[in-house]
């Protein structure tokens, strides 16, 4: 029998950890990436990776609490068993990365140092300077290079995934990819295909994501029949540096290490920030959220910064929306040791030293909580069955999704320093399940009839040739992309309104029509980045529509999805009895809303890239949903009322503590 092979699409943290684990299990891998894998977008992750640890444990932390923070932060839209399993694995993941040589910062005594991140009260986050993602990626890249040297991995770098090959039985049996240099389109039989292609930030034009994060690989699977979950949940990071080509991330670790967000109390105060006395500074996150302060979850920090600038008119600058992120009270040596990498980025791109002057920052599109719908097999006590071939499988048999492009770990909002964890965890965890699947297969993909592969190549070759043969005209894909980015950024980010979303959906249709016709300025067949970009652009539309349609239909506020029209009110009554009554009503409303909307959005791609949406129950069997009350006026009373109700209706879960 010929050897079985797995194709992995994408070489970031998820793709590389899956690759190395598969190799360890004796399974050969073809690894495809648009860029040399060492340059994958994971390098941009800055702050760190979460796990409970020996120190936090003694302060009351546990895997259960990491799980609870993740679910609460995600507004209960996360599927609980995968998150539980991830939290249980987190300490082991960090131990493994430590063994692989990742230079985590150390304490005086030589232990791995930790810092605090948003949405938790514990110092859970391990970090390597302020380039943790880069360092973790390098650790994995090195291991995969080792397997490459041993002949277990064939790398196809500068190859662009065109789509899956689906056999007559409806199962995935390979991929079609295009060499970005020679433009050759070729099929690769694979017994299992893993999609680890990251997020779709380019749909928003400028974001914190890298230039290859165009979402095309996920969209091509979506168009081939894979379902897409929770598309409308897009994380807008509170702190980024605005730029003409990119919105560069300013890590949450800046706040984790004590950074304070503020604006002058007087609008557009012209004094230099150092000359503004403390009393005339508005530390709005600290004032509004005394418990979490600057480390409220990202969706909340983002909305507050947006609110301060847009609604209260307190932006630092008159013609540009921004607030101060201030580190100048921290010693230079400590800043260099813990945050050097990100402070250098600010200095390099803004020409201002953030150790001396407060940074000017504004929110930017950062991460997609949604992604390809993926499955799991649950154990009786609420974790995942190790080695189950169902874990991380998409709705297409033998096609798996891991990392940012799967949907079930982060719910409605991701906590900082959980993405590196979910990427590495899902990559490691998927491998034994795939081994089980391969063992049960009777015929390897390479022995399937060649017609199915020939037909797939033919289809993609025709698409390519048709694009090159297009008549030249005045419209061009870069212009359309810019307009798409503007539409998406205006309608489907921080604040969402139904009229704007409807208008955006129509505008997307118009842009799609233009993208179907726009001319190409390069019709050559050698390293033609123009045609590759045009294809990616056309494939952005099904996902853009899924995001906007999902946002339009979801009439509620949950995590990153915020519609003021449906916001839950703060309590207004002055006396206690009145408040109690209001809290009861509040909880009724909360319950009714959950009944309707505590559901995953699951999209199927219809003809011409138009998504159909269905809603699926979320597994909340471990932790009953409770109101997310960070900073809400009257929150303590609501919580009391809610706890009373919960105690009467559902038993406390068999806690894994």
């Amino acid at each position, binding site marked *: 029998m010929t050897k079985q092979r797995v194709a992995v699409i994408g070489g970031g943290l998820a793709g590389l950890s899956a690759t*190395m684990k598969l190799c360890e299990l004796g399974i050969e891998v073809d690894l495809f990436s648009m860029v040399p894998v060492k340059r994958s*977008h994971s*390098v941009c992750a800055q702050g760190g990776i979460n796990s409970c640890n020996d120190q936090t444990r003694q302060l009351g932390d546990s895997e259960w609490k990491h799980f609870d923070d993740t679910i609460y932060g995600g507004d209960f839209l996360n599927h609980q068993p995968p998150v539980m399993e991830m939290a249980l694995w987190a300490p082991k993941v960090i131990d493994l990365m430590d063994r692989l*040589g990742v230079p985590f910062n150390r304490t005086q005594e*030589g232990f791995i140092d930790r810092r605090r991140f948003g949405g938790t009260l514990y110092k859970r986050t391990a970090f390597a300077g302020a380039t943790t993602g880069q360092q973790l990626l390098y*650790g994995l890249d*090195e291991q995969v290079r080792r397997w490459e040297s041993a002949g277990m991995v064939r790398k196809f770098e500068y190859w662009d995934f065109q789509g899956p090959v689906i056999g007559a039985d409806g199962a995935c049996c390979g991929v079609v990819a295009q060499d970005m*240099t020679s433009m050759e389109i070729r099929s690769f039989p694979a017994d299992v295909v893993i999609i680890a292609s990251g997020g779709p930030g380019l749909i928003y034009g400028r974001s914190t994501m890298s*230039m290859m994060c165009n979402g095309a690989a996920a969209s091509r699977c979506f168009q081939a029949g894979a379902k897409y979950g929770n598309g409308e949940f897009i994380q807008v990071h509170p702190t980024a540096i605005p730029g003409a080509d990119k919105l560069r991330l300013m890590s949450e670790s800046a706040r984790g290490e004590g950074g304070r967000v503020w604006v002058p109390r007087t609008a557009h105060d012209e004094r230099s920030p150092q000359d503004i006395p403390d009393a005339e500074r508005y530390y709005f996150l600290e004032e509004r959220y005394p418990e979490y302060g600057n480390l409220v979850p990202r969706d909340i920090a983002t909305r507050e910064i947006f609110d301060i600038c847009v609604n209260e008119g307190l932006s630092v600058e008159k013609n540009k929306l921004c607030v101060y992120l201030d580190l100048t009270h921290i010693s230079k040596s400590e800043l260099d040791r813990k945050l050097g990498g990100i402070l250098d980025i600010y200095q390099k791109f803004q020409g201002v030293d953030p150790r001396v002057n407060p940074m000017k920052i504004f929110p930017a599109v950062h991460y997609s909580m949604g992604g390809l719908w993926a499955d799991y097999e649950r154990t009786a006590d609420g974790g995942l069955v190790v080695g189950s071939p169902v874990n991380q499988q998409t709705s297409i048999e033998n096609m798996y999704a891991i990392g940012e492009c799967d949907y079930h770990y982060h719910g409605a909002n991701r906590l900082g320093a959980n993405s590196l964890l979910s990427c590495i965890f899902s990559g490691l965890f998927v491998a034994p399940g795939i081994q089980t699947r391969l063992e049960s297969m009777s015929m390897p993909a390479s022995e399937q009839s060649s017609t199915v592969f020939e037909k797939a190549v033919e289809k993609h070759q025709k698409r390519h040739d048709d694009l090159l043969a297009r008549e030249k005209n005045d419209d061009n894909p870069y212009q359309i992309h810019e307009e798409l980015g503007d539409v998406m950024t205006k309608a489907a980010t921080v604040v969402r309104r139904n009229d704007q979303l409807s208008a955006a959906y129509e505008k997307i249709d118009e842009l799609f029509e233009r993208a179907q016709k726009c001319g190409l300025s390069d019709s050559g067949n050698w390293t033609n980045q123009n045609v590759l970009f045009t294809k990616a652009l056309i494939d952005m539309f099904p996902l853009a529509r899924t995001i906007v349609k999902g946002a339009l239909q979801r009439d509620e506020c949950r995590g990153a999805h915020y519609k003021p029209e449906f916001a839950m009110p703060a309590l207004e009554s002055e006396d206690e009895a009145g408040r109690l009554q209001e809290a009861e009503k509040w909880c009724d409303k909360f319950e009714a809303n959950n009944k309707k909307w505590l559901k995953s959005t699951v999209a199927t791609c219809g003809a011409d890239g138009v998504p159909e949406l269905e809603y699926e129950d979320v597994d909340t069997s471990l932790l009953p949903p409770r109101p997310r009350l960070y900073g809400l006026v009257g929150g303590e009373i609501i919580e009391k009322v809610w706890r009373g109700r919960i105690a009467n209706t559902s038993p406390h879960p068999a806690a894994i503590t």
Partner: protein
Amino acid sequence: MIKNVYGENLTSFTVKVRRQASPDSQSYWEAFNIPYQADLNVISVLQQIAKMSKNAKGESTTPVAWDCGCLEEVCGACTMVINGRVRQSCSALVDNILDENNDVLRLEPMSKFPVIRDLVVDRSRVFRALQKIKAWVPVDGYYDMGAGPKQDRKRQEQAYPLSECMSCGCCLEACPQYLKVETQRESDETDEQFEDRKNAEYDKNFVGAHAINQAMLFNSNPTGKMISGERLDALTDEGGIQICGNAQNCVAVCPKEIPLTTSIAKAGRAATIHKIKKFFDSNEK
């Protein structure tokens, strides 16, 4: 506001790009006029060229091909030669360059790597060098074996800067001893045969500062050093550290300010000791 040579406010500037349609065609210069805006970087200039697809003469042209990724100087993709100096194009701010250079921006591909098209070059040799010097920690496997060895803070602070190398190739472009290796594909070769021949050719030539630095990084790791001899073998083999002419250009151009020459000096000493030890070991047998 940037002024032109006549002291007037700059409204547009010229970008000259050294273009080349394919590996075996001739290179040529093409000029573009870009309207001036504050805070542009070279990436946004290239994005604008792609959108205009017209050169300075108003003729239609193809977009310039170039490599890029993160746009925040951590991925290493967008290296090119800008006004004669090798660097990342994302962190090359147009205002600073125009200030120094009379309104003209000159973009060229790196000269030490085969050109694929325009500013895109083939840097596979950079990654091959990492294979050659075994730039990895040889762990037993990926099962849970608890934490790694405890490490002191000082060691982490030394290792971290070395580990920031993003394989961008700046140090290689600037190195007088690092010469271009171009392997032509034979017509009757399979992909694998060509790959093997190319790698053999790379292995005969200088590994470069980045790889020597990585060898020192892994030789200082508590587990990594268990195969330090193998790395020193690679560094003293053909194409090894002996080729370094100590020009020190590498450290001057490294965008991450990695102490490359310190690593090279360390590697030199370690290699010498390793060689002597090996000599006596083999005499004993």
